[in-house]
């Protein structure tokens, strides 16, 4: 068996997941992990699958595209060999939540993520919440992995400096505080 990731993007409608999973099953693939979301009416999903020996990514993609067309489902498909290797940054990392908020304007994500890239900080999840704090207000929540070797004070200063240049506020908090406050766990 070999492991592939198959990604799907297109208009959301009831039955999309049923069609995609049926087609993967018909191709002999076993689904081992899925992440799916809907954004602006668009369905997006990544399926990690174990595919039968000899089934090439290009062949699997072709089968999926034909099946979707036959089912009348309009999705783009990409199939790639998967790897179990995760980005580690070359050192142990800790999970942090970095929130940036203020007046919405183009270039905010690029501005902050440039700082992350400079410090080898990996973004694991990014969420934009628009309009909740008033019209034209934006809140971006980055869940990131921060290498332990990083000087947190320096990172905070750099982020604050970039944020203030655009009238934004930034907060940097270890993820554990969110878990501790909001979630009840037995340990």
């Amino acid at each position: 068996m070999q492991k592939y990731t198959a990604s799907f993007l297109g208009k959301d409608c009831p039955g999309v997941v049923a069609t995609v999973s049926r087609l993967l099953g018909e191709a002999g693939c076993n689904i081992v992990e899925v992440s799916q979301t809907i954004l602006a009416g668009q369905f997006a999903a990544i399926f990690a699958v174990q595919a039968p020996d000899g089934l090439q990514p290009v062949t699997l993609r072709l089968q999926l595209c034909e099946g979707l067309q036959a089912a009348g489902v309009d999705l783009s498909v990409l199939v790639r060999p998967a790897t179990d290797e995760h980005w580690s940054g070359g050192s142990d990392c800790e999970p942090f939540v970095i929130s940036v908020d203020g007046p919405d304007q183009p270039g905010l994500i690029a501005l902050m993520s440039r700082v992350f890239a400079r410090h080898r900080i990996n973004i694991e999840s990014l969420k934009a919440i628009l309009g909740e704090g008033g019209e034209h207000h934006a809140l971006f929540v980055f869940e990131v992995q921060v290498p332990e070797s990083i000087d947190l004070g320096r990172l905070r200063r750099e982020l604050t400096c970039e944020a203030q240049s655009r009238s934004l506020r930034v907060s940097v908090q270890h993820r554990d505080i969110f878990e501790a406050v909001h979630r009840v766990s037995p340990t």
Partner: protein
Amino acid sequence: MLSEREVTSILNMLRNEHLDVRTITLGVSLFDCVSHDLDLFIGNVQAKLRRYAAQLVHVCNEVGDRYGIPVVNKRISVSPIAVVGAPFGPDGMVRICCALDAAAQEAGVDFLGGFTALVEKGFTCGDRALIEALPEALSQTERICSSINVASSRSGINMDAVALMGEQIRRTAQATADRGGIGCAKLVVFANIPQDVPFMAGAYLGVGEPDVVINVGVSGPGVVRKAIDRAVAAGHNNRGGRLTLLDLAEVIKRTAYKVTRVGEIIGGEVARRLGIPFGVADLSLAPTPAVGDSVGEIFQSLGLSSIGAPGSTAVLAMLNDAVKKGGAFASSSVGGLSGAFIPVSEDSSIEAAATSGLLSLEKLEAMTSVCSVGLDMIAIPGDTPATSIAGLIADEMAIGMINHKTTAVRVIPVPGKGVGEAVSFGGLLGKAAIMSVPQGDASAFIGFGGRIPAPIHSLKN
């Protein structure tokens, strides 16, 4: 992945609702510092405090930064000085107090508590020396807090100590007359004092406590108030039914849980980094003079025109209980006072109610039967007789003794000022109108002295 609500609610608590860790208090036992030689004792104390407290402020700031939640105050509590300094007289006690003040300054903490005597059943030589030293000791120092436990449910009330404290509070106010009697803001008289309080001015490290320990005091009246406001604004409970006090008690409890979790995670990490055991999380709604960080405002959110209005004692009882329940669920190490404070000068809303006459000393006394502490930060006329102050203390001690709870008195007889005037202490201690003390003479009662016996522990009605 965190939900949108999980992230935004913490950001709101921090930015708009004054969420913080109010204090991390390093408890240091001084029992291994004792000596019959005063210089040697002071040297031992300073060396031990230096050893354990040198990194306290730095580590608290570092951990606060890591979680994005400020640790507002860093403090130290020590073993009761009347016990560890028992061989020394009043002059020696003043020197010890000054040495502790210098050590607190060196460590960068704002207060050090433990200039303490435990006299609920009687005095030792050290107790008498410490109490005699209070006016001079508190006038010569900036950061030292003193607590005197004069009563307990097991021992009764030491009325000789009550009478003596009435006089010493007057003398301490006189000794700090140039600063509005501020010495009394650092002096508390207790019944049933807990051994592990992280909050000042009552913090000290009890004799059953570890050699060193980290206790954390979390607050958050602003967070509780906003949670109540949101529930009231929604107009219904989470099942769509009519919003009642039962629902609001649940809101307070859940909010107290969240705030306590913040304190526990931060206190625990500070303790780990310092290599010191974690003691307790004390969730006490402790206000500051800042608007939005007030316990008094919670009374308004719960439907009273002001704290002091009829219903205030019931509101405080519900608030105090819900806070304890939330805190107890959040941490297995809840201790200290854990409840709601009602310090008049330190809370802008309570201070306003006292100034306008909506809140009287008598009503405050009634409320102390259900709050977590007692008559706190109350300015009274400077010419209040010592026996009347002793009478106030005796009343408050009786409430604590009979109800098996901590009660305390921290009153400031402001020299040269009377009812209708005000005093400002600045900073966290705030400002207060001078409140009138009930008329009548307690001198003959106080003059009897002796001890009010401990109450019966059965036949409770």
